[in-house]
């Protein structure tokens, strides 16, 4: 629930637009991950028998999880902005009254 003071202070369209680059950048990161996975796996196999090869082999899921979390977090930020924009827009049009005013 957004506080009433925010309703008049921001252009909902600007909020919406601000979130889009975040979602796009996060999407680019997601698309890059499979190629990194493949290279990671190949390097692990190439260095088989060495310490680094072992660590690479064992840590691939960790890397994927970490980077996916990065992408999700940024995407989430973009979505938050988009939702905020929707809430503000609805409030401005009178279709939605924030809970605090009810």
């Amino acid at each position, binding site marked *: 629930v957004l506080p009433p003071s925010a309703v008049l202070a921001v*252009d909902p369209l600007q909020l919406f637009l601000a979130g889009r680059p975040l979602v796009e950048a996060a999407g680019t990161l997601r698309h890059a991950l499979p190629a990194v996975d493949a290279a990671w796996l190949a390097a692990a196999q190439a*260095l088989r028998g060495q310490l680094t090869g072992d660590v690479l082999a064992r840590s691939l899921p960790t890397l994927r999880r970490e980077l996916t979390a990065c992408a999700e977090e940024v995407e989430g930020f973009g979505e938050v902005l988009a939702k905020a924009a929707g809430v503000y827009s609805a409030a401005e049009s009178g279709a939605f009254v924030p809970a605090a005013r009810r």
Partner: protein
Amino acid sequence: VNSADTQHAVVAAAEVAGLDFRAVELLVSRLRALAELLCDLVAAVIRAVPAGWSGPGEQAFDAARGRVRAQLEAQAGALQAASLALSALCTSGSSVQAEVTVARRLEVTGVDAPEAISTQLRMAITAFGYADQRAAGLLLDVLAGGPLTGRPKLGLPLSSRAGDLAGGVMAAPAVPAEPAGVALWWAGLPAQTRAAQPAALVGSLDGVPARARDAANRLALAIALHDAERRYADEGFHGLTHALSMIAGSLLPPLLSGPASDLIDRALEPARRRVAALRELADDLAHPGAELIEFDGRGDGRAVVASGDLDASRTVAVVVPGMTTELEDVPRLIDQSATLAHAAGAGAVVVAWLGYDAPSVIQVVHDAKAKTGARDLRRFTAGLRVTAVARQHLTVIGHSYGTLVAGLAAHDAPMADDLVLLASPGVEAASARELDVPAGHVWAARATTDPIQAVFWPGKLLGKLGLPAPYVFGPDPAASTFGATHFAIGGAHGHSGYFTEGSQSLDNLGRIVSGRPTLPTDQQTGEARG
């Protein structure tokens, strides 16, 4: 290195030689690209502040944005550091593979397999081991305790954090003080970092492989020759020469032309001699095989020249010349090296070691130059021990004041398998036993016609009278009481005839260098037959 170490090195070399680092290089490029993507995300997060938004909503958003930004920066820094560590691993692995190629070539040419595991290869393997440990540790650190799993260690700004993490991986460490450390340092340097090292540094570092030093010093020689020629051809000299020639040749009576020309010649002589010596040195080095192990064209100059492939040879002699030797004498020393190498037999390499500032006639009564030279000679021979492909039989031959340099260098630590003292004025030791050389392998000789023996006359005279002997640099190493082994030096005359071709002296020096038995001498008097 014992056989277990050698076997381990053989196994490790074979393992690393079989690795394909192209896949790792691909991962390095992928991780770098990924780090850039994360930086793009950081930029997007920074820009995501709609104008005019304020209040608690904006504050909450800003706080959350700051947290995410820090996480992204940390993640990008971690990926950059990991890519650097993996890149260092690739470079180190490539060095091992290059050394394995060299070792296999040696093996093909008949060198025993364990022996073919050269010092450089062992060091390359060691460096690879370090790089492997570092890369593995770094990957574990940044992934297992990564920024998104809650460990609060990644709060530094991207640039400094990446720099900190990468610093220990890629930055060239300071040059170690000792040759063994230098060798390890050099082995661990990426090729591009090696190439970026100043030639003057590489050329003078004991512990760097001879071929690398040779390349650096040839460059320094070319520059020195260019400078010397320019100085010689300097306009002022030309102007002076021309003017005086005109006066001497045309205006003054013929009687004056001779003295005037002499004056000009004398003024130009040092520059002319330097140019001639440098040109001759450059010409000598144009012959295949010779290596310029050290070169400094400043002042009296220093030069260390090997007659062949120094690191590959199993039989090496280092000849330390005496007083007043300077850069202009190096071509003569190179000829002397070639003569001795021939006498020692196939595969022997002789080093003309003017690696110290030889004293002038006035300075020769002091040991200061010898002490400094001894320190440098010790470093040089220690460097040989770590850069040699296989165990070398090393003989150090001092001549005249050079014996004091060599003797002092052998005082505190083993330096050579054999130490030869030719025409020595003393080595500041009461006997051969005070020198850290295997028993029976301190050799001494002095021709009966060598005037250096006059150094000991006052001491001998007073000794006969029962008075303390006032030796300058200690007792006579050629005396039987000193305990050095003598050898026949027939055909050697005066102070500088020990390397005369066809002499017993040269023959025996070659025998000592190559480890063959020497021809005997008169053990009754302790004096070598000259």
